[in-house]
C-alpha cells in the first residue's frame, strides 16, 4: 500500500502525510530506481530499514490554509529522503490549486458542490499553455 493521506478535524486542523513502506537504498544517487541495477554486487541493495514515516513528506496546517492531492508528485527533489521518480503528472494538482487560489482571491466560501465541480473539471493546464 502507498497512500496520500489527507486529514481534517473539527477544530479546523488539516494535514497531509505520505504513507508508504519506502525502502532505504544503500546508494543515494537520486532516481537510482529508474535504472536496471547490477545484481552482481550488493552495492545497489536496500538496507534492512524502511524510511520512517516521520521523515516522509508531510504538511500540518500549512500557512496557505488548504491542502490538495491528485496523485501528483508529493515534494520537490530536495526532500530529505529520495522517494524516487514518479510517472504521475502534476497537471491535475496544478489545476486544482489554481481553482482554490482563484476562489480565495475572490473571497469565495467553498462548498461541497465546489469539490464536485473541481473533480469534474476538464481543463488541461499544459494544453492550455501551449
Amino acid at each position, binding site marked *: *500500500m*502507498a*497512500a*496520500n*493521506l*489527507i*486529514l*481534517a*478535524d*473539527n*477544530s479546523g*486542523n*488539516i*494535514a497531509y*502525510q*505520505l*504513507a*508508504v*513502506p*519506502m*525502502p532505504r*537504498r544503500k546508494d543515494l544517487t537520486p*532516481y*537510482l*530506481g*529508474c*535504472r*536496471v*541495477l*547490477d*545484481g*552482481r*554486487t*550488493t552495492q*545497489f*541493495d*536496500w538496507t*534492512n530499514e*524502511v524510511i*520512517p*514515516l*516521520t521523515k516522509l513528506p508531510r504538511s*500540518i*496546517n500549512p500557512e496557505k490554509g488548504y491542502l490538495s*492531492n*491528485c*496523485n501528483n508528485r*508529493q515534494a520537490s527533489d530536495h526532500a530529505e529522503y529520495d*522517494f*524516487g*521518480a*514518479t*510517472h*504521475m503528472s502534476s497537471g491535475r494538482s496544478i489545476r486544482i490549486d489554481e481553482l482554490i487560489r482563484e476562489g480565495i482571491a475572490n473571497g469565495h466560501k467553498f462548498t461541497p458542490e465546489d469539490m464536485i465541480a473541481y473533480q469534474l473539471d476538464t481543463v488541461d493546464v499544459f494544453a492550455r499553455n501551449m
Partner: protein
Amino acid sequence: MGRSAHMTWGLTAAIVDNSDLWEEQLNKKRDRYFVDGEWRKLKITGEYIKVKQANGKIKDKKISIKMTHRGPLIRADQLRFNAALLFGGNVPNLPVTDQVTKDGKSLDTTYSFGWGGAFYEGDTSLDFLDSVMTATDVPEFFEMMQDATH
C-alpha cells in the same frame, strides 16, 4: 474516504518509487545467482492456483517462484506490462528476445524484483492508519503515528 465524530480523511494512491529491478546472473542450472563474488542459492517456493477444468473439476496448478534476497525473479517479457510504473515513466532498454532453448528455458535476461510493500517481514509501518478512526484530532493522530513508527 471516511469520517469519525472528530475527523474526516481521504486517501489517494501515492505513486512513489518503492520498487527496484536488478539484473541477475544465474548459473547454468538456474538455481544459484552470482553476488559479491559468490554463487548464492535461489530460494525456491511454490504457490498453488486452483484452476477449473473443462469438465468442471478443480485442479491445482503449481507455480514455482524463485527468489534472490531482493525478491522474486521476473521474466523480461512480463515486465512489458508494468515497466512504466516501475521506472517512473522512462523505461530503459529491456532486451526481450522471446527466444527459448530446446528445453523451453528463456534466453532473456533474468531480473529480480524488490517491492517495499513486501520486502520487510513483519513491517507494521502502516498500522497507524487505524488511528484515523480513533484519534480525536489531527495533533493526536500524529502523536499516535510517532509512537507507531519508533
